[in-house]
């Protein structure tokens, strides 16, 4: 809060806009996680939180600290690169785990039915 008074309006406007946009996108992504029906639809909701929501807030943070400290502060790029490299791995592993579990459950149910039929 103490630095906010020193921020000129041309920097404050984009920072505020990016923060509001990032927050809204984050909440929309988790809304998708909350209200969609099946798991395979739900996995697409958090993807927008991770990419665009996090991206907006990281850019806002970079802009804010660069202007208030009047030097280039770009170490948020590290978080951006890390998240962009790891989020695909996470979603792929969860998707695979879900698919294997569903296939296994259906196979078990089928063999159970067969045993009952005999």
């Amino acid at each position: 809060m103490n630095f906010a008074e020193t921020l000129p309006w041309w920097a404050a406007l984009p920072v505020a806009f990016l923060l509001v946009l990032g927050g809204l996108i984050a909440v929309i992504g988790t809304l998708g996680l909350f209200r969609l029906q099946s798991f395979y639809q739900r996995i697409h909701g958090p993807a927008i939180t991770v990419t665009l929501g996090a991206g907006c807030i990281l850019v806002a943070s970079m802009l804010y600290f660069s202007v208030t400290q009047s030097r280039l502060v770009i170490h948020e790029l590290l978080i951006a690169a890390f998240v962009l490299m790891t989020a695909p791995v996470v979603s792929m592993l969860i998707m695979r785990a879900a698919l294997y579990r569903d296939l296994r459950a259906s196979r078990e149910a089928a063999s159970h039915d067969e045993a009952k039929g005999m």
Partner: protein
Amino acid sequence: MKRWLPSPLLSVSLLLTWLMLNQSVAPGHLLLGGALAIIAPLLARPLQPHGHARLGRPLALFRLLWLSAIEIVRSCFNVTQIILLRRSEQVNSQFIRVPLALRSPHGLALLSCLINSTPGTVWVEILPEKHELLLHVFDLHDEQWWVETIKTRYEQPIIEVFETHEAKPEGDRA
């Protein structure tokens, strides 16, 4: 040169990471980061079964990354619209199969990262029999369009980028 710097791009990014973490370009940090950038790829080499990736055309890679960044933003807004405006039953989510010609492991890793970063598509796995990619699409309207988009917009540039590397593992396997 080849012996001490097996992968220049990896070394440069390690040095940049070190400088960003310390937030300075003082000579001491440059020296430490440079040592890290030279030693870490050499030590990590036995951990990578396919060796370091060799980029045939780095410019094509940057163009591909830029185009897919635009694609990510565009499909973010599509997914946002679908989440906010449509009921869950009306969304046609399905698995599709995409036949792939790309074989290089580094190229496949890059392709999976790009596809998974784009909201609305999740890479599931490669079916080994016919080298087909199993893909889950959030809102499928035209399967043929998706297959063609992935083949022309992602796979073709990636084959171009890893073009020089392509010949070697094929030969090794045969």
